[in-house]
C-alpha cells in the first residue's frame, strides 16, 4: 500500500461516527483537566483505563490520546490567565502570556497559543506519518553521554529565561538541582536530603513546587500589593490577535515546531526541554530580546508550538518501537495491551488500521481542539473580569485539590504551602523562579545519565567528545557561554534589567 492509501485508510477509520465522538470526548475532557491546575492527564487516564475494556481498541486509544493532547491545550489557559503552569511544559508560557493578560491582551495570547499549537500539531502528526520509524532511530542514538551534554546545554540556556542578573539565575538553577536530588538515590537506594520523611522518599512532585511557588505565592503577593480591590487588569483592548501579532509570531511558531518535534522524541523531559529551548532560541534570535518577559507574542507562540509538537512526537517511540517515553505513554501502552495489541513494528504491518487510524485521529483531534477553543476564548477572557475577591478562593481550592489528588495525602498540600512561603521569599529577593523549575526537571536526568556514562566507561570522561551528537551539544554550550560573557551581550541583559526596574 502506498503512503496515500495508508493515510486514507487511517482517515476512513478515524472518521466513523463512534471514533469521531470518542475523539471529541477525549479532547473535551483533556481541555477540562488541563485547565484545572494540578489535575493531570496521567491520573485521569488511569481512572478511565478500565472503561476502555468495553470499547473497541481504536476508540479507546483515540479517546485517551485526545485527553493527552487536549490537556496540553488546556494547560496554557491557566498559565496565561492566572500565572499558574499546570505542567512543566507550560512554565515558560507564563513568562510572557501572563504579562499579555495583564495588559488586556489575554485573548490574543490564547488565540496565538491555540493556533500555534494547531500548526505544530499538524506538522508533528505529519512527521509521525512520514518519518516515524526514521525519527525513532534518532531517539535511540541518544545514549547517556548525549543526555549529559544536552542537559548541560539546557541548563545554561535556562539562564536566558530570566531577565535579571545571570548570577541569580544560576543560583536558582542550583536550588532547582538540589530540590531534584531529594529522595531515594536511584543508583544506590540511599535516601538523600529527606529530613527522614517517608513521603519524600520518591522525591518532590513537580506540581507541588509549581503550585507553591507560582500559584500560592502569586495569590499572597497579589493580596499584599493592595488587597483584592487593587488586582485589576488593564481593560480588554481587543479579543483577537492583531495583524502585527501574526506577523511577529509565525517565525516563532515554525522554530518552536521544529524544536518540539525533535526533542519530543526523547524520553523524560522532552516536552519541557522543548518549550524552554524554544523560548530561549526566540530570545536569542529576536531583534528586541530585552522585551521578552514583558508580554511579547513570540514568547507565547514558540513554547506553545514546541510543547504541542513534542506531545505529538512523543507517540513515535511508542508506536514504532513499543517503548513509552514518559508516564503518559506508559499508560497508553497499557491501553494497547488491555486489548492484546503490542505496539511496535509488527503492528505497523499487521494492523495498519490501528496506527494510521490513531495518526489520522490525532490530526482531527487537533482540529477539533482549535474549533472548540477559539470560541471559548471569549468565555475565558470574561473570567478575568470576575472580581479577584471571588476568583482567588476558587484558584486556592483548585490548587489544593490538585496537589492532594496526586498521591492522596495531606503531606503534599502542606509541602506546597511551604513552597508558597519560599516563593514569597524569592519574590522579595527579586529572584525569578523559572530557572529553578528547569533545574528541578532536568537535574535528575543530568545526574543519573552522568553517573551512568561514567559507570559504563569505567570513569573515563573522553566519551563526551568522542560521540558526535554529544560533541556538537558541548560546542554549542561553549559558544552560548562565550556569548554570555561577551560584553555586548552583557549590556543587553543589563539594559533589559534596568528597563524592568524602571
Amino acid at each position, binding site marked *: 500500500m502506498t503512503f496515500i492509501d495508508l493515510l486514507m485508510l487511517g482517515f476512513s477509520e478515524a472518521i466513523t461516527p463512534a471514533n469521531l465522538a470518542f475523539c471529541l470526548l477525549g479532547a473535551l475532557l483533556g481541555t477540562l*483537566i488541563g485547565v*484545572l491546575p494540578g*489535575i493531570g492527564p496521567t491520573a*485521569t487516564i488511569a*481512572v478511565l483505563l478500565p472503561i476502555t475494556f468495553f470499547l473497541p481498541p481504536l476508540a479507546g486509544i483515540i479517546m485517551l490520546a485526545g485527553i493527552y493532547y487536549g490537556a496540553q491545550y488546556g494547560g496554557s489557559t491557566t498559565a496565561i490567565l492566572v500565572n499558574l503552569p499546570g505542567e512543566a511544559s507550560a512554565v515558560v508560557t507564563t513568562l510572557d502570556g501572563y504579562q499579555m493578560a495583564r495588559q488586556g491582551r489575554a485573548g490574543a495570547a490564547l488565540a496565538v497559543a491555540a493556533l500555534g499549537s494547531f500548526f505544530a500539531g499538524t506538522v508533528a502528526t505529519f512527521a509521525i506519518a512520514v518519518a516515524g520509524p526514521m525519527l525513532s532511530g534518532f531517539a535511540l542514538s541518544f545514549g547517556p553521554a548525549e543526555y549529559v551534554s544536552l542537559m548541560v546545554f539546557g541548563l545554561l540556556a535556562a539562564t536566558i529565561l530570566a531577565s535579571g542578573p545571570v*548570577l*541569580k539565575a*544560576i*543560583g536558582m538553577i*542550583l*536550588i532547582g*538541582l*538540589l530540590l531534584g*536530588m531529594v529522595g531515594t*538515590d536511584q543508583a*544506590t537506594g*540511599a535516601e*538523600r*536530603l529527606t*529530613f527522614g520523611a517517608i513521603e519524600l522518599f520518591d522525591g518532590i512532585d513537580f506540581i507541588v513546587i509549581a503550585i507553591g511557588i507560582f500559584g*500560592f505565592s502569586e*495569590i*499572597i503577593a497579589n*493580596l*499584599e500589593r493592595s*488587597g*483584592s*480591590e487593587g488586582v485589576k487588569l488593564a481593560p480588554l483592548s481587543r479579543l483577537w490577535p492583531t495583524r502585527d501579532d501574526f506577523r511577529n509570531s509565525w517565525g516563532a511558531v515554525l522554530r518552536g515546531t521544529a524544536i518540539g518535534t525533535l526533542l519530543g522524541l526523547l524520553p523524560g523531559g522532552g516536552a519541557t526541554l522543548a518549550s524552554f529551548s524554544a523560548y530561549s532560541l526566540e530570545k536569542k534570535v529576536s531583534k528586541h530580546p530585552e522585551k521578552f518577559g514583558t508580554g511579547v507574542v513570540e514568547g507565547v507562540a514558540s513554547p506553545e508550538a514546541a510543547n504541542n509538537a513534542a506531545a505529538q512526537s512523543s507517540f513515535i517511540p511508542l508506536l514504532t518501537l513499543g517503548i513509552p517515553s514518559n508516564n503518559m505513554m506508559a499508560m497508553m501502552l497499557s491501553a494497547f495491551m488491555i486489548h492484546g495489541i503490542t505496539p511496535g513494528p509488527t503492528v505497523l504491518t499487521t494492523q495498519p488500521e490501528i496506527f494510521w487510524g490513531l495518526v489520522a485521529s490525532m490530526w482531527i483531534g487537533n482540529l477539533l481542539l482549535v474549533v472548540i477553543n477559539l470560541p471559548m476564548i471569549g468565555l475565558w477572557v470574561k473570567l478575568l473580569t470576575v472580581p479577584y*475577591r*471571588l476568583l*482567588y*478562593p476558587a484558584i*486556592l*481550592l*483548585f490548587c*489544593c*485539590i490538585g496537589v*492532594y*489528588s496526586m498521591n*492522596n495525602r*495531606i503531606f503534599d*498540600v*502542606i509541602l506546597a*504551602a511551604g513552597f*508558597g512561603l519560599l516563593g*514569597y*521569599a*524569592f519574590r*522579595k*529577593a*527579586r*529572584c525569578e523562579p523559572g530557572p529553578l523549575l528547569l533545574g528541578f526537571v532536568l537535574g535528575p536526568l543530568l*545526574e543519573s545519565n*552522568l*553517573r551512568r556514562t*561514567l*559507570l559504563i566507561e*569505567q*570513569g573515563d*570522561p573522553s566519551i563526551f567528545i568522542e560521540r558526535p551528537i554529544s560533541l556538537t551539544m558541548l560546542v554549542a554550550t561553549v559558544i552560548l557561554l562565550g556569548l554570555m560573557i561577551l560584553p555586548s551581550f552583557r549590556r543587553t541583559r543589563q539594559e533589559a534589567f534596568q528597563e524592568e526596574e524602571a
Partner: protein
Amino acid sequence: MARPTATGTGDRPDLLSAGLFIGLGGLGLFMARGLDTGTLAQMGPGFLPRVVCVLLIAVGLAVGIPALRRPVQAIDAIRLRPLLVITVAIVGFAYAATHLGFVLASLWLIVAGSLADPGGNWRHILLLAAGLTLFGALVFVYGLGVQVPLWPF
C-alpha cells in the same frame, strides 16, 4: 528584615538572595553529611549534592559581597496578613480533607482564605464557599474520581 526607611549601603533584595542561596547550600551540605561521595567512576549518592551546594554557596557569596557596597535598596513592604492567613487556610484544608472530609475542608479553605482580604462581605463569602464546595464535590470527587471522603463519617 529591612524596612523601606533603611539608609546607608546594601542592596537588600540581593542580600536576601545571597542569604537564601548560602542558607540552602549550607542546609544541603549539612543534610548530605552522612552520604558517601564515592569516586568519579562509582559516584556515591553524596557526590553531586555536595558539588551543587558548594557552587550554591559560592554564587551566594558572589551575589552578596558586591551587594553590600551598592547604594541602599529596600525590600518591598511585607504585609503579614495575607501571608499568614493563606498559609494557615491551606494547612487547615490539608488536615481537614482526610479527617473531616472534603465538604468541611473546602468550606474552611474558602471562608478562612477569604479573611486574607479585609474588604470581604460575609454573605458573599458564604455563598461563594457553598457554591465552590458543591462544584468541587461534583467535578473533582464524582466527576474525576479524586480519592477523598466527602463527609467526616
